[in-house]
């Protein structure tokens, strides 16, 4: 039996199959094959950080993002599935947490192009080597049409818990400070989920990844494995030039903005109409969150005294507006999107917001914390 047939047999007999998909789907340009694969066998699918937008966010089989700041359901149910199908992802430590307690109950199928990745972190039962575009289309004929309604419902139930405990408070905040989530939600609305979102590194990156609505492939660009601050501003310039007909919006923290701020000069000279949203909390947010949770709020070197980003942008010939009040958020983003030129929005968000859920380093994925 070929590896494909072996994998198909495991999937066909699975009661709780679970797909985790990564950038391999995007790199292999296999979005259509992937969709057909999961739809035929009705498999709940979760994305890694770099896999986002390979499947439209609102697809009913898309159950969220896995990983340290991913969604509650996929992280918890990783340790309940009976067959875990990894597609174009490399079991990064931010996704697996403690390897000793990662999906030990499941049979693992790994669709992967790089043989060195197979069995590198996680022992696989069946490895299907090759470009996922070929291997996914190759396995579909061997798959049985299947329904996993009650298994899928388990994901939806846990999502309701996450909504109540975490998401609702961020989208419908009663306190004065604007939340990062609200900004992303409004952006989804004004761009119809069709923009390319380029995010930098930190809390804003996690919120943008959790809340952005992706309808089209190749819509999420971020520094994943290395986590390079200062990535988004220049990367968004390259992205806009590569996709001039798409709206490209860079989501950048106030710390990250200052790492490669000189690239505003490239925007000035090339006039590339990139849109920039600074989620400004006057902190090095992610490090501050860790200092709050694990170092008794000893904020060592995470307080940022920021310049006036509006004045700087205007110095670089870029239109800029500041948003400090919730009621101005919607119209400000609308104006930014409507502009045919580059535009910078400096949004003052709540200073000490935290990103949840969270799997602390080395913890078990199913012990993901909601607060």
């Amino acid at each position: 039996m070929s590896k494909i047939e072996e994998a198909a047999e495991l999937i066909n007999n699975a009661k709780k199959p679970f797909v985790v998909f990564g950038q391999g789907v995007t790199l292999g340009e296999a979005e259509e094959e992937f969709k057909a694969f999961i739809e035929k066998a009705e498999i709940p699918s979760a994305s890694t950080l770099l896999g986002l937008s390979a499947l439209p966010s609102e697809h009913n089989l898309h159950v969220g993002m896995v990983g340290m700041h991913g969604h509650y359901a996929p992280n918890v149910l990783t340790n309940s599935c009976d067959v875990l199908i990894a597609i174009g992802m490399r079991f990064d430590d931010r996704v697996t947490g403690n390897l000793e307690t990662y999906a030990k109950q499941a049979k693992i199928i790994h669709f992967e192009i790089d043989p060195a990745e197979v069995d590198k972190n996680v022992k696989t039962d069946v490895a299907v080597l090759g470009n996922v575009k070929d291997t996914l289309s190759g396995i579909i004929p061997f798959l049985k049409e299947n329904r996993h309604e009650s298994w899928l419902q388990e994901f939806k139930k846990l999502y309701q818990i996450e909504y109540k405990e975490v998401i609702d408070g961020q989208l419908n905040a009663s306190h004065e400070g604007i939340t990062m989530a609200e900004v992303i939600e409004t952006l989804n609305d004004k761009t119809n989920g069709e923009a390319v979102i380029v995010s930098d590194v930190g809390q804003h990156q996690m919120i943008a990844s959790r809340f952005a609505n992706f309808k089209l492939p190749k819509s999420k660009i971020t520094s994943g494995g290395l986590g390079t601050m200062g990535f988004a501003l220049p990367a968004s310039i390259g992205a806009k030039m590569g996709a001039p007909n798409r709206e490209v919006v860079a989501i950048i923290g106030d710390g990250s903005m200052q790492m490669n701020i000189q690239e505003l000069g490239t925007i000035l000279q090339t006039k590339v109409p990139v849109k920039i949203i600074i989620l400004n909390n006057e902190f090095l947010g992610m490090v501050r969150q860790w200092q709050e949770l694990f170092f008794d709020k000893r904020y060592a070197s995470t307080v940022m005294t920021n310049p006036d980003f509006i004045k700087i942008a205007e110095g670089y010939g870029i239109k800029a507006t500041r948003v400090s009040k919730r009621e101005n958020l919607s119209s400000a983003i609308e104006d930014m999107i409507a502009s045919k030129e580059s535009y910078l929005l400096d949004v003052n968000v709540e200073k000490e917001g935290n990103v949840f859920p969270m799997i602390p380093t080395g913890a078990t994925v199913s012990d993901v914390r909601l607060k």
Partner: protein
Amino acid sequence: METVTKQNQKVNTTKKIKISGAEAVVKSLLAEGADLIYGYPGGAIMPVYDEFYKYQNELHHVLTRHEQGAIHAAQGFARVTGKVGVAIATSGPGATNLITGVADAQIDSTPLVCITGQVGSHLLGSDAFQETDIISISTPVTKWNYQITKASEIPEILAKAFYIAKSGRPGPVLIDITKDAQFGELDFTYKKCKKLEVIHLYLK
């Protein structure tokens, strides 16, 4: 706004013509369909930039404000198009400023070809002005790298670089070109790399 809308000039790949190494770099890039590149000039890469000036209607070079900006822009371009991103910098600090982006592309499997200028080959190892051993520095963070010291190597090495960057699991490739190789002359023909041939690697 300048974007990727210019038509590729048809590169004559069948007839042999005598050109400089620097011009061979430009012609090779165009033959690979890389007509939008990001970079920052400097002494060791000036011959190539001189050719950019001559070819400005076919090859669009975007001047960033830091080499790190150039390489991250090339990454953004590669991620959104699926094509190989190209970044170019001079020797020494120009090359080392690319390294963060190269490491980023390596771990996130982004196809990139980075071209760095290098001091003349007779100066290698002498601590010359803006000289760094970028090959050693970039070895752990590239899929492949190579130092070109003869103009005749340019077309084949660049073809191999683009192939390696894009094939299998994509990743960054760094090609270091000494200044005398840029000034040197060669009979130019270009052949795209269809697969890696093991033995016949360096045609003399």
